[in-house]
């Protein structure tokens, strides 16, 4: 029987402000425990919160980027619960009226494009951290993270697979980094997802959902949703029922485990925080934020598709980050032609280089200028495509000028037809079997022969020319 998986995500994006949302303490990561916790963060008696305007501006930016509605007036509420890493015994959050309502994040999934509708995005403060390591039979509390500004972005339950949910999470990750509101470092917890997963018969009513908490990598997100959907389907097929509960993903075992059920769901007793005034956002403030923010990636994607005839997939990959798209544009400005070829190289060779080095596109050892030189040499026929890849590797290693590398290593392509004819002749003479195979109708043999010529010329032959000469010679001798 068919099952449909239904996924919605709640994402906590840490806003890239220098100080906390309600205090002046730094938000920098990695400081010794409790060195970035001010009197306000420690909830010392008598302290009061003061809203960080920058955090609000980042929320407005996000709202504008997703085409949501910015609330002209909204409030901060207290979410009450006890936990040692929650110093005040309540978290300041938004409940009734979020700062951003609605909006959508465009995603490219497979060959299709889709807009993932958002329910809301609201501002809140992060809690601290409990430390269990290195403390015998005790728990330590680090409040450096307490009060860090978060934007909780809630999607509608519109994703239909783990892969689609990951595509959305990646698009959202790219978007918040693009507009500069979140640095997106997932290891440092700057971008973490909770997944709401349920299964149903196609077209049927929504099933009971489970929430999987705190997924801080795309891989875990995918694995957790896959596991959870399978668990629910098996449970129902065995005659069981899904209980609404909160679950945790165990990355070592690749499974989700129940954390708490709906029955022990807490009553958070939300009410407006009387220490903070209602948040008023004027049209003038919104206009000012709009003027300061970069154009969102979807507008760039649309331009790439229409102006450069890139596929939606290529355009989406290029706009994964602002650094990457800047790199592409800078290289294309030099090459001045073949945008699809340039895009393929950026998305292929250069992306994998960035990945290997764990660097973003501004920190690559290959500059957009060097890369453009390599592409130009390839398009001019000076070097072959395989030599181009080789040069790229060399530049990455040595940061030398690509033209100097081509010269030094003698990678200049052989386009001299006399030399190529001789090389083809000797291969045809030596590879009798391949020639016979080709003549017997085995097309693959032709490519093998080209390969032999390339090998004989140490990859310096112009493969297009080689093919033409070879084809002519084989046909001439067979007739």
């Amino acid at each position, binding site marked *: 029987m068919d099952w449909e998986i239904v996924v919605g995500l709640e994402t906590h994006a840490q806003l890239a402000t220098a100080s906390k949302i309600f205090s002046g303490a730094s938000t920098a990561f990695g400081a010794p425990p409790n060195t970035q916790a001010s*009197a306000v963060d*420690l*909830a*010392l*008696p*008598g*302290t*009061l*919160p*003061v*809203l960080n305007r920058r955090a609000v501006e980042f929320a407005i930016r996000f709202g504008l980027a997703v085409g949501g509605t910015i609330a002209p007036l909204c409030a901060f509420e*207290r979410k*009450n619960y*006890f936990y*040692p890493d929650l*110093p*005040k*015994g*309540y978290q300041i959050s938004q409940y009734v009226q979020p700062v951003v309502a609605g909006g959508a994040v465009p995603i490219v999934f497979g060959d299709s494009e889709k807009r993932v509708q958002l329910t809301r995005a609201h501002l809140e403060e992060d809690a601290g951290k409990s430390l269990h390591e290195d403390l015998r039979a005790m728990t330590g*509390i680090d409040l450096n993270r307490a009060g860090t500004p978060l934007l909780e972005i809630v999607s509608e339950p519109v994703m239909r697979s783990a892969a689609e949910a990951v595509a959305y999470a990646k698009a959202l990750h790219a978007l918040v980094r693009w507009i500069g509101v979140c640095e997106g470092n997932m290891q440092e917890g700057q971008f973490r997802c909770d997944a709401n997963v349920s299964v149903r018969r196609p077209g049927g009513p929504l099933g009971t959902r489970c929430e999987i908490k705190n997924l801080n990598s795309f891989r875990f997100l995918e694995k957790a949703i896959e596991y959870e959907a399978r668990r629910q389907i098996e449970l129902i097929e065995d005659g069981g029922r899904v209980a609404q509960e909160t679950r945790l993903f165990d990355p070592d075992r690749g499974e989700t485990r129940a954390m708490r059920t709906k029955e022990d769901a807490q*009553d958070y*007793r*939300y*009410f407006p925080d*009387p*220490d*903070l*005034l209602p948040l008023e956002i004027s049209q003038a403030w919104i206009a000012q934020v709009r003027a300061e923010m970069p154009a969102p990636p979807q507008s760039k994607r649309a331009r790439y598709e229409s102006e450069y005839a890139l596929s939606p997939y290529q355009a989406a990959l290029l706009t994964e980050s602002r650094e990457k798209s800047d790199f592409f544009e800078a290289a294309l400005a030099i090459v001045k032609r073949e945008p699809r070829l340039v895009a393929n190289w950026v998305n292929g060779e250069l992306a994998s280089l960035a990945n290997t080095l764990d660097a973003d596109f501004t920190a690559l050892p290959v500059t957009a200028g060097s890369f453009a030189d390599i592409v130009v040499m390839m398009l001019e026929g000076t070097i072959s495509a395989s030599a181009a890849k080789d040069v790229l590797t060399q530049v990455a290693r040595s940061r030398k000028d690509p033209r100097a590398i081509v010269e030094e290593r003698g990678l200049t392509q052989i386009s001299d037809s006399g030399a190529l004819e001789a090389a083809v002749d000797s291969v045809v003479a030596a590879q009798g079997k391949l020639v016979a195979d080709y003549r017997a109708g085995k097309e693959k043999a032709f490519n093998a022969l080209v390969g032999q010529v390339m090998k004989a010329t140490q990859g310096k032959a112009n493969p297009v020319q080689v093919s033409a000469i070879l084809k002519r010679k084989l046909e001439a001798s067979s007739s």
Partner: protein
Amino acid sequence: MHAESIRSLAARLAKRELSSVELTRAHLARIARFNASLNAFITVDAEKSLAMARAADDRIAGGAAGPLTGIPIAHKDLFCAKGWPTTCGSKMLANYVSPYDAHVLERFGRAGAVLLGKTNMDEFAMGSSNENSFFGAVKNPWDERAVPGGSSGGSAAAVAARLAPAATGTDTGGSIRQPASFTGVCGLRPTYGRVSRYGMVAFASSLDQGGVVARSAEDLALLLGVMAGFDERDSTSIDRPVDDYVAALARGAKGLRIGLPREYFGAELAADVAKPILAAIDELKKLGATTVEVSLPNQHLSVPVYYVVASAEASANLSRYDGVRYGHRAEGYRDLTEMYCRTRAEGFGAEVKRRILIGTYVLSHGYYDAYYLQAQRVRRLIARDFSDAFKRCDLIAGPAAPSVAFDLGAKTADPVQMYLQDIYTIPINLAGLPGLAIPCGFGDRGRPVGLQIVGNYFDETRMLAAAHAYQQVTDWHTRVPPGFE
């Protein structure tokens, strides 16, 4: 010198006829003599106070004196003072020493005041008799069988007994005006937002306002001028220029229209309180004021609204006292839940627990709309009653409390009777208005009666001017409790 006004003391200090050390020593001596019976102070630290006094004398000698340089001031023990215990009258914070100064303490420090000690109070400012303190009840200097009122009972008793020229207080539902009335001193609650709440331990954030207890309207004006002003660390603090309250005292009461709310003179008001209140209003008329009857039709809903709103806010404000980072922590717990439960069971007194329970209840799922939201709606109606009334008058006058000070223990068995102590003060807090209480005579058994004067938002100048005019022609505020002369 303990009978002199702050203004006169400041003048003598400036002329160096008197030193701050002498003045501080004199008050410390009175505290040493009387505090054992009154229990008005929780913390006294003569060494620290005298060091501040010496610094003040140096400052005066250096010609850099501020308006209060060298004047000893006591502070209610919920104002955080760096290096001093800040207990809030609770076992929970009995050993808590604040690492920073409240905004109000900074202001007094800048003006040159000497910190004389921390005064007793109802635990976390919850109470109307000062019987809810972990450090024991405070006695009323006029009659040690009587309560001093609360929650700023220690401050009121200290000023009444001339142990301090003035003391800060906080007023969430009447906690300055009612004890001032019970002890025959002057108490001022400014407009909500006029004095920063930063460093003032919260009871109910939307109602709490810092103020002061002193012996004359003139001293109140001087002290308010020091305390008032915008503070960016308190989002509810209001950025608005501070009036010259002392200069405005000269305006007098002439031409002021004084509203008398019908509801403030009903059956709840004891006859022995009504008489001096009406006499005081006559006195204001003689000074050129006119009276007009006004109505506050929703006033009778104030006490229930207050106990919903204040308790709701308190239930969250007091969640931070969990034993994790500071304050009391139970011993010998087995797990986190037990640590929380025992810490809070041991650390809080009965009244605080009662309010946390009420507050938790009214915010709970299924009750929120019926209690909390409904209370907020009625709160707006109560505030509107006042704005309607102020269309017809400049000030509102009436009693500060329905009776004179009651006996210790008289109302402890019945919380509702205790809560009704605040029927005339709570509406002002719900509306966010300023109010003051000044002594205007004595009721049964020679216990003081206080006249309450309420002003429109930020109209402290008119309230103070009327009170000052009254005090120019009466001497109730100069009366000293027998035995404390």
